[in-house]
């Protein structure tokens, strides 16, 4: 069957639309995640969000807003924890608790393994038409946060004390990014899945960093890459039936590797040219 036929179906159009919003948010916010190196939060939040999402499934609540609220709160909680205790142990255990609770909810709801799979690895058909609106709103809110704190995030990352003298607080920037991340991951989860959201968040931004020299360039490239990866993944997932997360992970890794190779090749050419 010609896979392009899928666009005749509303659910496929919805899925692509929602996924586009998600991709823009992931690419945009990923820039700051990579800038500040918050690998831990990027890994952790989707896993905690998984517990929230499976709890929502159990309660029959399908609202993205509910999961977003839960994720935003969880984000702040993780921020507080990461400051106080050795992140390796305490937070690893919190994550485990989150995942374990998610497993509990899944088994209590007598939900099939397919539900676990789609929450963890993403599913093409996960979005209804109201879901598109919700996804757009949540993504927009996440993006609005990092847009507002764009300069503060840059300044506090690069020269923390100088920024503080001017009134730009590193802690405020941290919280803003975490909250944004919480919102973004809850939007990403239905599409990419909890376990592989990290790829979409970090991969395009890492690739863009090697190719772009200035912040707005890096953001734009990250968004563009993220959109391409998401569309391709959705398309391939529909055509082959394999999980979306699989394609996202592969394409993100590919994009990163390609970006590094290109920048290295360009660097060598520049050196040769200068010599």
């Amino acid at each position, binding site marked *: 069957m010609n896979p392009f036929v899928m666009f005749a179906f509303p659910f496929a159009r919805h899925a692509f639309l929602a996924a586009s919003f998600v991709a823009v948010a992931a690419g945009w916010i990923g820039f700051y995640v990579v800038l500040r190196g918050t690998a831990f939060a990027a890994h952790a939040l989707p896993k905690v969000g998984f517990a929230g999402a499976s709890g929502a499934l159990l309660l029959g609540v399908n609202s993205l807003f509910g999961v977003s609220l839960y994720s935003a709160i969880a984000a702040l909680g993780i921020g507080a924890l990461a400051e106080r205790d050795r992140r390796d142990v305490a937070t690893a255990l919190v994550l485990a608790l989150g995942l374990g609770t998610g497993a509990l909810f899944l088994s209590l709801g007598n939900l099939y393994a397919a539900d676990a799979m789609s929450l963890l690895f993403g599913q093409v058909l996960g979005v209804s038409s109201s879901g598109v609106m919700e996804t757009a709103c949540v993504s927009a809110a996440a993006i609005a946060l990092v847009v507002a704190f764009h300069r503060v995030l840059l300044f506090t990352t*690069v020269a923390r004390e100088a920024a503080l003298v001017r009134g730009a607080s590193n802690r405020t920037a941290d919280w803003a990014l975490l909250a944004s991340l919480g919102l973004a991951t809850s939007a990403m989860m239905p599409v990419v899945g909890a376990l592989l959201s990290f790829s979409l968040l970090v991969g395009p931004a890492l690739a863009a960093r090697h190719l772009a020299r200035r912040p707005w360039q890096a953001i734009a490239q990250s968004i563009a890459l993220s959109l391409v990866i998401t569309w391709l993944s959705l398309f391939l997932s529909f055509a082959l039936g394999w999980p979306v997360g699989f394609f996202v992970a592969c394409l993100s890794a590919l994009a990163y590797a390609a970006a590094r190779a290109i920048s290295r090749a360009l660097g060598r050419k520049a050196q040769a040219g200068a010599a």
Partner: protein
Amino acid sequence: MNPAISFRDLTVSYGSRTVFAHLTGEIRAGQFVGVLGPNGAGKSTLLKAIAGLVRPVAGAVEIDGKPVRRRNKAIGYVPQSVQLDEDVPLTGRDLVGLGLDGHRLGFPLPTKERREAIDAALAQVNALHLADRRIGRLSGGERQRLLIAQAVVSKPRVLLLDEPLNNLDLASTHQVVELVKRLAHEGQMAVLLVAHDVNPLIGRADEILYLANGRMAKGPLDDVLRPEVLSGLYGYPVEVLRAGGRVIVAAGAMDGHAHAVSAASPEASVMLP
């Protein structure tokens, strides 16, 4: 006319440890003051207290006659060092621009004035050629100059530099001190530069602020760097050795000739004329 920086009875503690107590002094616009002293004396802490980053237990700091507070446009701060990834997507221009409006919300508008202000600051520190280079790929000295540009682009009244010379080679060290002197005199800024070694400052700094043992002495270099003054600060005999135009401060009298001013010197802050 209010001095650019003035502090009175300044006392800072970390927990139960008092870093320094009852420091009083002032620095006028256009003055370039080097801050010296042994490790752990509190030089960076003093700088941070003046910048409003550290809250004193007692005493007060005033900038231009007004109490210092966070979000102070009149202060330019050059941090000790910055940890940067090689691939950070920021150019020199971006970094300097943050000094202008990095505390504001949203994205910067690319107006002509903004661009001109940034170019002017880059020109001042002789770093125009670094404007479009990635900051992660620059040398220590180049980065230091950009950080200074970032601090002065908003034309502050006060410039504070926290150990800027630490990881620089000799040539860069002299370049940076020369630059700072120029900025102080031409820009009419009150400048405090924390350093470990007095030698690059000789002939360039207007005054020295020597911090030791929780007390300070401030004045022209030759007046402060004297055995009796420093011994008074330290509370034990200190030698000041001069050889070939260089100065070395050494603890402990070798031959007993250094006369220490009474160890319990009542003045915490000695101002020398």
